[in-house]
Protein backbone atom coordinates (compact mmCIF):
# COMPACT_ATOMS: atom_id res chain seq x y z
CA UNK A 1 0.00 0.00 0.00
CA UNK A 2 1.32 3.39 -0.97
CA UNK A 3 -1.69 5.64 -0.55
CA UNK A 4 -1.30 9.40 -0.98
CA UNK A 5 -3.82 12.21 -0.65
CA UNK A 6 -4.31 13.79 -4.07
CA UNK A 7 -5.58 17.34 -4.36
CA UNK A 8 -6.43 19.44 -7.39
CA UNK A 9 -5.51 23.13 -7.14
CA UNK A 10 -7.26 25.20 -9.78
CA UNK A 11 -7.88 28.83 -10.54
CA UNK A 12 -11.26 29.40 -12.15
CA UNK A 13 -12.26 32.74 -13.58
CA UNK A 14 -10.42 35.36 -15.52
CA UNK A 15 -7.86 36.87 -13.16
CA UNK A 16 -4.42 35.96 -14.33
CA UNK A 17 -2.41 35.96 -11.11
CA UNK A 18 -1.59 32.57 -9.70
CA UNK A 19 1.21 33.38 -7.31
CA UNK A 20 -1.01 32.70 -4.31
CA UNK A 21 -2.29 29.43 -5.72
CA UNK A 22 1.25 28.29 -6.46
CA UNK A 23 2.39 29.10 -2.93
CA UNK A 24 -0.45 27.00 -1.53
CA UNK A 25 0.29 24.21 -4.02
CA UNK A 26 3.93 24.07 -2.92
CA UNK A 27 3.00 24.16 0.73
CA UNK A 28 0.61 21.25 0.24
CA UNK A 29 3.34 19.31 -1.54
CA UNK A 30 5.63 20.01 1.40
CA UNK A 31 2.92 18.61 3.66
CA UNK A 32 3.12 15.32 1.76
CA UNK A 33 0.18 15.69 -0.63
CA UNK A 34 0.24 14.98 -4.33
CA UNK A 35 -0.88 18.28 -5.78
CA UNK A 36 -2.18 18.46 -9.33
CA UNK A 37 -1.79 22.04 -10.40
CA UNK A 38 -3.82 23.08 -13.44
CA UNK A 39 -3.06 26.77 -13.75
CA UNK A 40 -5.14 29.86 -14.45
CA UNK A 41 -8.38 30.48 -16.32
CA UNK A 42 -9.89 27.09 -15.70
CA UNK A 43 -13.54 26.69 -16.65
CA UNK A 44 -15.78 24.69 -14.29
CA UNK A 45 -15.86 21.87 -16.85
CA UNK A 46 -12.07 21.79 -17.08
CA UNK A 47 -11.85 21.58 -13.30
CA UNK A 48 -14.36 18.74 -13.11
CA UNK A 49 -12.65 16.86 -15.93
CA UNK A 50 -9.22 17.16 -14.31
CA UNK A 51 -10.63 16.13 -10.91
CA UNK A 52 -12.17 13.05 -12.50
CA UNK A 53 -9.14 11.96 -14.53
CA UNK A 54 -6.77 12.53 -11.63
CA UNK A 55 -9.13 10.81 -9.16
CA UNK A 56 -8.43 13.46 -6.54
CA UNK A 57 -9.60 13.35 -2.93
CA UNK A 58 -10.08 17.11 -2.65
CA UNK A 59 -10.58 20.05 -5.02
CA UNK A 60 -9.12 23.40 -3.95
CA UNK A 61 -10.11 26.60 -5.75
CA UNK A 62 -8.19 29.85 -5.61
CA UNK A 63 -10.35 32.86 -6.42
CA UNK A 64 -8.97 36.33 -5.85
CA UNK A 65 -11.17 38.24 -8.29
CA UNK A 66 -14.14 38.45 -5.94
CA UNK A 67 -16.22 36.37 -8.34
CA UNK A 68 -16.50 33.43 -5.93
CA UNK A 69 -20.27 33.69 -5.49
CA UNK A 70 -20.71 33.29 -9.24
CA UNK A 71 -18.00 30.70 -9.84
CA UNK A 72 -18.42 28.32 -6.92
CA UNK A 73 -21.94 27.09 -7.78
CA UNK A 74 -20.84 26.46 -11.36
CA UNK A 75 -17.84 24.42 -10.26
CA UNK A 76 -19.95 22.50 -7.75
CA UNK A 77 -22.48 21.76 -10.48
CA UNK A 78 -19.81 20.62 -12.94
CA UNK A 79 -18.35 18.30 -10.28
CA UNK A 80 -21.78 16.84 -9.56
CA UNK A 81 -22.44 16.29 -13.26
CA UNK A 82 -19.14 14.41 -13.44
CA UNK A 83 -20.29 12.18 -10.58
CA UNK A 84 -17.95 13.83 -8.10
CA UNK A 85 -20.55 15.17 -5.65
CA UNK A 86 -18.68 13.54 -2.78
CA UNK A 87 -15.37 15.28 -3.42
CA UNK A 88 -14.85 18.05 -0.83
CA UNK A 89 -14.47 21.54 -2.28
CA UNK A 90 -12.21 24.08 -0.59
CA UNK A 91 -11.88 27.76 -1.41
CA UNK A 92 -8.98 30.10 -0.91
CA UNK A 93 -9.09 33.81 -1.56
CA UNK A 94 -10.49 37.10 -0.40
CA UNK A 95 -14.00 36.30 0.83
CA UNK A 96 -16.15 38.72 2.86
CA UNK A 97 -17.41 37.20 6.12
CA UNK A 98 -21.06 37.41 5.10
CA UNK A 99 -20.43 35.20 2.06
CA UNK A 100 -19.00 32.33 4.09
CA UNK A 101 -22.26 30.75 5.32
CA UNK A 102 -23.71 31.04 1.82
CA UNK A 103 -20.65 29.33 0.39
CA UNK A 104 -21.02 26.54 2.93
CA UNK A 105 -24.59 26.10 1.72
CA UNK A 106 -23.28 25.89 -1.82
CA UNK A 107 -21.23 22.90 -0.72
CA UNK A 108 -17.87 24.49 0.05
CA UNK A 109 -16.40 22.62 3.03
CA UNK A 110 -13.72 25.12 3.98
CA UNK A 111 -12.93 28.76 3.22
CA UNK A 112 -9.42 30.07 3.76
CA UNK A 113 -8.52 33.74 3.59
CA UNK A 114 -5.17 35.14 2.51
CA UNK A 115 -2.42 34.40 4.99
CA UNK A 116 -4.07 31.33 6.45
CA UNK A 117 -1.18 29.24 7.79
CA UNK A 118 -0.76 26.18 5.60
CA UNK A 119 -0.84 23.97 8.67
CA UNK A 120 -4.48 24.97 9.18
CA UNK A 121 -5.38 23.92 5.64
CA UNK A 122 -3.44 20.68 5.95
CA UNK A 123 -5.14 19.76 9.24
CA UNK A 124 -8.51 20.64 7.75
CA UNK A 125 -7.96 18.31 4.79
CA UNK A 126 -6.83 15.47 7.02
CA UNK A 127 -9.95 15.89 9.18
CA UNK A 128 -12.22 16.23 6.18
CA UNK A 129 -11.00 12.96 4.70
CA UNK A 130 -11.04 11.11 8.00
CA UNK A 131 -14.69 11.80 8.71
CA UNK A 132 -17.22 9.91 6.62
CA UNK A 133 -19.23 12.35 4.52
Amino acid at each position, binding site marked *: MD*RKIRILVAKPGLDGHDRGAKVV*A*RALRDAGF*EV*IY*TGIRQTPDMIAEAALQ*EDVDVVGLSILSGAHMALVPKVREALTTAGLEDVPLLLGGIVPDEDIPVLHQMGVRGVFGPGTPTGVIVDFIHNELREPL
Partner: protein
Amino acid sequence: MPDLSTASGLVAALNEGNRRALARVISHIENNDALAQPLLAALYPQAGAAHLIGVTGAPGTGKSTLVNGMALAFRQQGLTVGIVAVDPTSPFSGGALLGDRVRMRDLAGDPGIFIRSMATRGSLGGLAQTTADVVMTLDAAGFARVIIETVGVGQSEVEIASTAHTTIVVEAPGLGDEVQAIKAGILEIADIFAVNKADREGADRTVMALQMMLALGGTGHQQILHHGRMLPVDLPPAPPADGWTPPIHKTVATQNQGIAALVEAIEAHRGYLQHSGLRQTRDRLRAATELRMILRDLLLQRTLAAIPAADIAALVHAVAAREIDPYSAAQRLVARTTS
Protein backbone atom coordinates in the same frame (compact mmCIF):
# COMPACT_ATOMS: atom_id res chain seq x y z
CA MET B 1 -25.10 2.80 -11.64
CA PRO B 2 -22.03 0.63 -12.17
CA ASP B 3 -20.45 -0.87 -9.07
CA LEU B 4 -17.04 0.75 -8.83
CA SER B 5 -16.12 -0.98 -5.59
CA THR B 6 -15.17 -4.35 -7.08
CA ALA B 7 -12.57 -5.31 -9.67
CA SER B 8 -15.13 -6.88 -11.99
CA GLY B 9 -17.45 -3.88 -11.68
CA LEU B 10 -14.59 -1.50 -12.44
CA VAL B 11 -13.43 -3.48 -15.47
CA ALA B 12 -16.98 -3.74 -16.85
CA ALA B 13 -17.47 0.02 -16.44
CA LEU B 14 -14.05 0.78 -17.94
CA ASN B 15 -14.94 -1.30 -20.97
CA GLU B 16 -18.14 0.70 -21.39
CA GLY B 17 -16.03 3.84 -21.59
CA ASN B 18 -16.69 5.01 -18.02
CA ARG B 19 -13.85 7.47 -17.37
CA ARG B 20 -14.44 7.58 -13.64
CA ALA B 21 -13.86 3.83 -13.57
CA LEU B 22 -10.65 4.24 -15.57
CA ALA B 23 -9.41 6.90 -13.14
CA ARG B 24 -10.26 4.66 -10.17
CA VAL B 25 -8.51 1.66 -11.68
CA ILE B 26 -5.35 3.73 -12.11
CA SER B 27 -5.51 4.78 -8.45
CA HIS B 28 -5.86 1.19 -7.26
CA ILE B 29 -2.82 0.25 -9.33
CA GLU B 30 -0.81 3.22 -8.10
CA ASN B 31 -1.71 2.49 -4.50
CA ASN B 32 -0.99 -1.20 -5.01
CA ASP B 33 -4.00 -2.05 -2.85
CA ALA B 34 -6.06 -5.22 -2.68
CA LEU B 35 -7.82 -4.59 -6.01
CA ALA B 36 -4.63 -3.88 -7.94
CA GLN B 37 -3.78 -7.43 -8.83
CA PRO B 38 -7.21 -8.66 -9.89
CA LEU B 39 -7.53 -5.50 -12.02
CA LEU B 40 -4.16 -6.04 -13.69
CA ALA B 41 -5.01 -9.67 -14.33
CA ALA B 42 -8.30 -8.75 -15.98
CA LEU B 43 -6.90 -5.89 -18.07
CA TYR B 44 -3.62 -7.36 -19.26
CA PRO B 45 -5.12 -9.62 -21.96
CA GLN B 46 -7.05 -6.62 -23.35
CA ALA B 47 -3.93 -4.51 -23.83
CA GLY B 48 -1.27 -4.62 -26.51
CA ALA B 49 -2.77 -2.65 -29.38
CA ALA B 50 -1.62 0.83 -28.37
CA HIS B 51 1.55 2.39 -29.67
CA LEU B 52 3.54 3.61 -26.65
CA ILE B 53 5.50 6.84 -27.00
CA GLY B 54 8.02 7.96 -24.38
CA VAL B 55 8.91 11.64 -24.14
CA THR B 56 11.87 12.51 -21.95
CA GLY B 57 14.44 15.25 -21.56
CA ALA B 58 15.83 17.76 -19.11
CA PRO B 59 13.44 19.84 -16.95
CA GLY B 60 11.76 22.70 -18.78
CA THR B 61 12.76 21.68 -22.31
CA GLY B 62 9.09 21.85 -23.34
CA LYS B 63 8.04 18.21 -23.06
CA SER B 64 4.50 18.89 -21.87
CA THR B 65 3.94 21.58 -24.50
CA LEU B 66 5.15 19.12 -27.12
CA VAL B 67 2.89 16.37 -25.78
CA ASN B 68 -0.02 18.80 -26.04
CA GLY B 69 0.80 19.48 -29.69
CA MET B 70 1.41 15.84 -30.53
CA ALA B 71 -1.87 14.77 -28.94
CA LEU B 72 -3.75 17.40 -30.97
CA ALA B 73 -2.12 16.11 -34.16
CA PHE B 74 -3.09 12.52 -33.34
CA ARG B 75 -6.64 13.62 -32.63
CA GLN B 76 -6.83 15.24 -36.05
CA GLN B 77 -6.03 11.81 -37.50
CA GLY B 78 -8.88 10.38 -35.47
CA LEU B 79 -6.59 8.57 -33.02
CA THR B 80 -7.40 8.57 -29.31
CA VAL B 81 -4.60 9.49 -26.90
CA GLY B 82 -3.84 8.57 -23.31
CA ILE B 83 -1.19 10.61 -21.51
CA VAL B 84 0.78 9.69 -18.38
CA ALA B 85 2.81 12.59 -17.03
CA VAL B 86 5.32 11.53 -14.39
CA ASP B 87 6.92 14.03 -12.01
CA PRO B 88 9.25 13.40 -9.09
CA THR B 89 8.07 12.92 -5.54
CA SER B 90 9.84 15.22 -3.09
CA PRO B 91 12.26 13.08 -1.09
CA PHE B 92 11.76 15.38 1.88
CA SER B 93 7.99 15.43 2.25
CA GLY B 94 6.79 12.51 0.14
CA GLY B 95 4.52 14.98 -1.63
CA ALA B 96 4.67 16.06 -5.25
CA LEU B 97 3.71 19.03 -7.38
CA LEU B 98 2.32 17.72 -10.65
CA GLY B 99 2.09 20.64 -13.06
CA ASP B 100 2.22 19.16 -16.55
CA ARG B 101 -1.51 19.72 -17.16
CA VAL B 102 -0.88 23.47 -17.20
CA ARG B 103 0.62 23.05 -20.68
CA MET B 104 -2.08 20.68 -21.90
CA ARG B 105 -5.13 22.89 -21.61
CA ASP B 106 -5.88 22.63 -25.34
CA LEU B 107 -6.80 19.01 -24.73
CA ALA B 108 -9.60 19.80 -22.27
CA GLY B 109 -13.10 18.63 -23.06
CA ASP B 110 -12.07 15.99 -25.58
CA PRO B 111 -13.42 12.52 -24.72
CA GLY B 112 -10.73 11.03 -26.97
CA ILE B 113 -8.05 12.20 -24.52
CA PHE B 114 -7.28 11.05 -20.99
CA ILE B 115 -4.49 12.70 -18.98
CA ARG B 116 -3.15 11.30 -15.75
CA SER B 117 -0.42 12.90 -13.63
CA MET B 118 1.74 10.55 -11.59
CA ALA B 119 4.29 11.06 -8.88
CA THR B 120 7.31 8.79 -8.72
CA ARG B 121 6.57 8.01 -5.03
CA GLY B 122 9.18 6.21 -3.02
CA SER B 123 8.89 2.69 -4.29
CA LEU B 124 12.41 1.42 -4.86
CA GLY B 125 12.70 0.16 -8.40
CA GLY B 126 8.94 -0.14 -8.51
CA LEU B 127 8.42 3.10 -10.38
CA ALA B 128 9.03 1.62 -13.79
CA GLN B 129 6.65 -1.23 -13.07
CA THR B 130 3.86 0.98 -11.72
CA THR B 131 4.15 3.33 -14.66
CA ALA B 132 4.11 0.40 -17.07
CA ASP B 133 0.95 -0.88 -15.37
CA VAL B 134 -0.77 2.51 -15.63
CA VAL B 135 0.24 2.73 -19.29
CA MET B 136 -1.08 -0.80 -19.80
CA THR B 137 -4.40 0.28 -18.27
CA LEU B 138 -4.79 3.12 -20.80
CA ASP B 139 -3.83 0.65 -23.53
CA ALA B 140 -6.48 -1.80 -22.29
CA ALA B 141 -9.02 1.04 -22.16
CA GLY B 142 -8.56 1.37 -25.91
CA PHE B 143 -6.40 4.45 -26.42
CA ALA B 144 -4.59 4.11 -29.74
CA ARG B 145 -1.55 6.12 -28.66
CA VAL B 146 -0.24 6.37 -25.11
CA ILE B 147 2.30 9.10 -24.42
CA ILE B 148 4.48 8.90 -21.32
CA GLU B 149 6.25 12.09 -20.20
CA THR B 150 9.13 11.74 -17.75
CA VAL B 151 11.87 14.12 -16.70
CA GLY B 152 15.07 12.61 -17.99
CA VAL B 153 17.22 12.94 -14.92
CA GLY B 154 17.18 9.75 -12.92
CA GLN B 155 18.00 6.28 -14.13
CA SER B 156 14.47 5.00 -13.59
CA GLU B 157 12.90 7.86 -15.53
CA VAL B 158 15.13 7.10 -18.46
CA GLU B 159 14.22 3.45 -18.07
CA ILE B 160 10.51 4.20 -18.21
CA ALA B 161 10.88 6.16 -21.39
CA SER B 162 12.97 3.44 -22.92
CA THR B 163 10.27 0.83 -22.40
CA ALA B 164 8.03 2.70 -24.84
CA HIS B 165 7.91 1.59 -28.46
CA THR B 166 9.09 4.96 -29.66
CA THR B 167 11.22 7.15 -27.42
CA ILE B 168 11.56 10.87 -28.11
CA VAL B 169 14.39 12.70 -26.40
CA VAL B 170 13.71 16.42 -26.13
CA GLU B 171 16.61 18.84 -26.15
CA ALA B 172 16.52 22.62 -26.06
CA PRO B 173 19.18 25.19 -26.81
CA GLY B 174 20.73 27.20 -24.05
CA LEU B 175 20.87 24.49 -21.44
CA GLY B 176 24.60 24.95 -21.34
CA ASP B 177 26.38 21.65 -21.26
CA GLU B 178 25.32 19.58 -24.27
CA VAL B 179 27.43 16.73 -23.01
CA GLN B 180 25.28 16.38 -19.92
CA ALA B 181 22.62 14.41 -21.71
CA ILE B 182 25.22 12.13 -23.16
CA LYS B 183 26.63 11.34 -19.75
CA ALA B 184 23.22 10.46 -18.39
CA GLY B 185 22.90 7.82 -21.08
CA ILE B 186 19.84 9.52 -22.46
CA LEU B 187 20.95 9.75 -26.07
CA GLU B 188 21.21 6.00 -26.45
CA ILE B 189 17.51 5.52 -25.85
CA ALA B 190 16.35 8.01 -28.48
CA ASP B 191 14.47 6.83 -31.52
CA ILE B 192 13.70 10.44 -32.42
CA PHE B 193 15.22 13.70 -31.25
CA ALA B 194 13.21 16.88 -30.87
CA VAL B 195 15.24 20.06 -30.58
CA ASN B 196 12.51 22.21 -29.09
CA LYS B 197 12.56 25.98 -28.56
CA ALA B 198 13.99 26.27 -32.04
CA ASP B 199 12.86 29.91 -31.94
CA ARG B 200 15.75 30.50 -29.56
CA GLU B 201 19.32 31.16 -30.38
CA GLY B 202 21.58 28.14 -30.42
CA ALA B 203 19.10 25.60 -31.78
CA ASP B 204 21.30 24.90 -34.78
CA ARG B 205 24.28 24.31 -32.53
CA THR B 206 22.25 21.77 -30.54
CA VAL B 207 21.22 20.04 -33.78
CA MET B 208 24.85 19.92 -34.87
CA ALA B 209 25.99 18.52 -31.55
CA LEU B 210 23.41 15.76 -31.89
CA GLN B 211 24.37 15.06 -35.49
CA MET B 212 27.96 14.66 -34.42
CA MET B 213 26.95 12.27 -31.67
CA LEU B 214 24.93 10.22 -34.13
CA ALA B 215 27.79 10.16 -36.63
CA LEU B 216 30.01 8.79 -33.89
CA GLY B 217 27.52 5.97 -33.49
CA GLY B 218 26.41 4.38 -30.29
CA THR B 219 22.76 5.38 -30.40
CA GLY B 220 19.59 3.63 -31.35
CA HIS B 221 18.46 1.31 -28.61
CA GLN B 222 21.22 -1.31 -28.76
CA GLN B 223 21.21 -1.51 -25.02
CA ILE B 224 17.67 -2.87 -24.98
CA LEU B 225 19.13 -6.25 -25.83
CA HIS B 226 20.61 -6.45 -22.37
CA HIS B 227 17.31 -6.00 -20.60
CA GLY B 228 15.88 -9.46 -20.86
CA ARG B 229 19.03 -11.49 -20.69
CA MET B 230 18.14 -13.30 -17.49
CA LEU B 231 15.21 -15.12 -19.01
CA PRO B 232 15.21 -17.04 -22.25
CA VAL B 233 13.52 -15.01 -24.96
CA ASP B 234 12.48 -16.46 -28.28
CA LEU B 235 13.35 -13.59 -30.58
CA PRO B 236 12.31 -13.00 -34.16
CA PRO B 237 15.07 -12.60 -36.76
CA ALA B 238 17.49 -9.73 -36.38
CA PRO B 239 16.40 -6.38 -37.82
CA PRO B 240 17.46 -5.54 -41.39
CA ALA B 241 20.85 -3.97 -41.82
CA ASP B 242 19.33 -0.70 -43.03
CA GLY B 243 18.34 0.02 -39.44
CA TRP B 244 16.77 3.11 -38.00
CA THR B 245 18.76 6.30 -37.71
CA PRO B 246 17.16 8.61 -35.16
CA PRO B 247 15.98 11.71 -37.01
CA ILE B 248 16.39 15.15 -35.47
CA HIS B 249 13.38 17.45 -35.61
CA LYS B 250 13.41 21.12 -34.76
CA THR B 251 10.20 22.22 -33.05
CA VAL B 252 8.64 25.30 -31.53
CA ALA B 253 6.03 23.66 -29.36
CA THR B 254 4.49 26.95 -28.24
CA GLN B 255 3.76 27.87 -31.87
CA ASN B 256 2.90 24.37 -33.05
CA GLN B 257 5.85 24.40 -35.45
CA GLY B 258 7.46 21.16 -36.50
CA ILE B 259 4.89 19.07 -34.66
CA ALA B 260 3.37 17.55 -37.79
CA ALA B 261 6.80 16.34 -38.92
CA LEU B 262 7.51 14.98 -35.44
CA VAL B 263 4.28 13.01 -35.44
CA GLU B 264 5.05 11.75 -38.94
CA ALA B 265 8.39 10.51 -37.65
CA ILE B 266 6.64 8.69 -34.81
CA GLU B 267 4.36 6.96 -37.26
CA ALA B 268 7.31 6.14 -39.52
CA HIS B 269 9.12 4.59 -36.58
CA ARG B 270 6.00 2.65 -35.70
CA GLY B 271 5.93 1.28 -39.22
CA TYR B 272 9.63 0.47 -39.06
CA LEU B 273 9.20 -1.46 -35.81
CA GLN B 274 6.40 -3.48 -37.33
CA HIS B 275 8.06 -4.29 -40.66
CA SER B 276 11.41 -5.14 -39.14
CA GLY B 277 9.95 -7.41 -36.48
CA LEU B 278 11.46 -5.15 -33.84
CA ARG B 279 8.09 -4.38 -32.31
CA GLN B 280 7.77 -8.05 -31.47
CA THR B 281 11.34 -8.09 -30.18
CA ARG B 282 10.72 -5.14 -27.92
CA ASP B 283 7.43 -6.54 -26.66
CA ARG B 284 9.07 -9.87 -25.83
CA LEU B 285 12.04 -8.25 -24.13
CA ARG B 286 9.66 -6.11 -22.13
CA ALA B 287 7.72 -9.21 -21.13
CA ALA B 288 10.94 -10.92 -20.06
CA THR B 289 12.08 -7.90 -18.06
CA GLU B 290 8.69 -7.51 -16.40
CA LEU B 291 8.44 -11.15 -15.50
CA ARG B 292 11.95 -11.20 -14.10
CA MET B 293 11.37 -8.11 -11.97
CA ILE B 294 8.07 -9.37 -10.61
CA LEU B 295 9.54 -12.80 -9.95
CA ARG B 296 12.42 -11.26 -8.05
CA ASP B 297 10.04 -9.21 -5.89
CA LEU B 298 7.79 -12.18 -5.23
CA LEU B 299 10.62 -14.50 -4.26
CA LEU B 300 12.12 -11.84 -2.04
CA GLN B 301 8.80 -11.26 -0.29
CA ARG B 302 8.29 -14.97 0.13
CA THR B 303 11.76 -15.51 1.56
CA LEU B 304 11.41 -12.62 3.96
CA ALA B 305 7.98 -13.81 5.06
CA ALA B 306 9.17 -17.35 5.69
CA ILE B 307 12.00 -16.46 8.04
CA PRO B 308 11.64 -14.79 11.45
CA ALA B 309 12.78 -11.17 11.31
CA ALA B 310 15.12 -11.76 14.25
CA ASP B 311 17.01 -14.44 12.32
CA ILE B 312 17.45 -12.11 9.37
CA ALA B 313 18.58 -9.32 11.67
CA ALA B 314 21.14 -11.65 13.20
CA LEU B 315 22.51 -12.50 9.76
CA VAL B 316 22.65 -8.81 8.80
CA HIS B 317 24.61 -8.22 11.97
CA ALA B 318 26.98 -11.07 11.15
CA VAL B 319 27.55 -9.70 7.65
CA ALA B 320 28.23 -6.22 9.02
CA ALA B 321 30.69 -7.71 11.52
CA ARG B 322 32.31 -9.61 8.64
CA GLU B 323 31.70 -12.93 10.32
CA ILE B 324 30.05 -14.10 7.12
CA ASP B 325 30.01 -12.73 3.57
CA PRO B 326 26.68 -11.53 2.13
CA TYR B 327 26.64 -14.20 -0.60
CA SER B 328 26.89 -17.05 1.87
CA ALA B 329 24.33 -15.33 4.08
CA ALA B 330 21.88 -15.10 1.19
CA GLN B 331 22.52 -18.75 0.31
CA ARG B 332 21.73 -19.72 3.85
CA LEU B 333 18.41 -17.82 3.81
CA VAL B 334 17.39 -19.33 0.49
CA ALA B 335 18.30 -22.81 1.73
CA ARG B 336 15.98 -22.35 4.70
CA THR B 337 12.98 -21.60 2.49
CA THR B 338 13.52 -24.47 0.07
CA SER B 339 14.31 -27.25 2.53
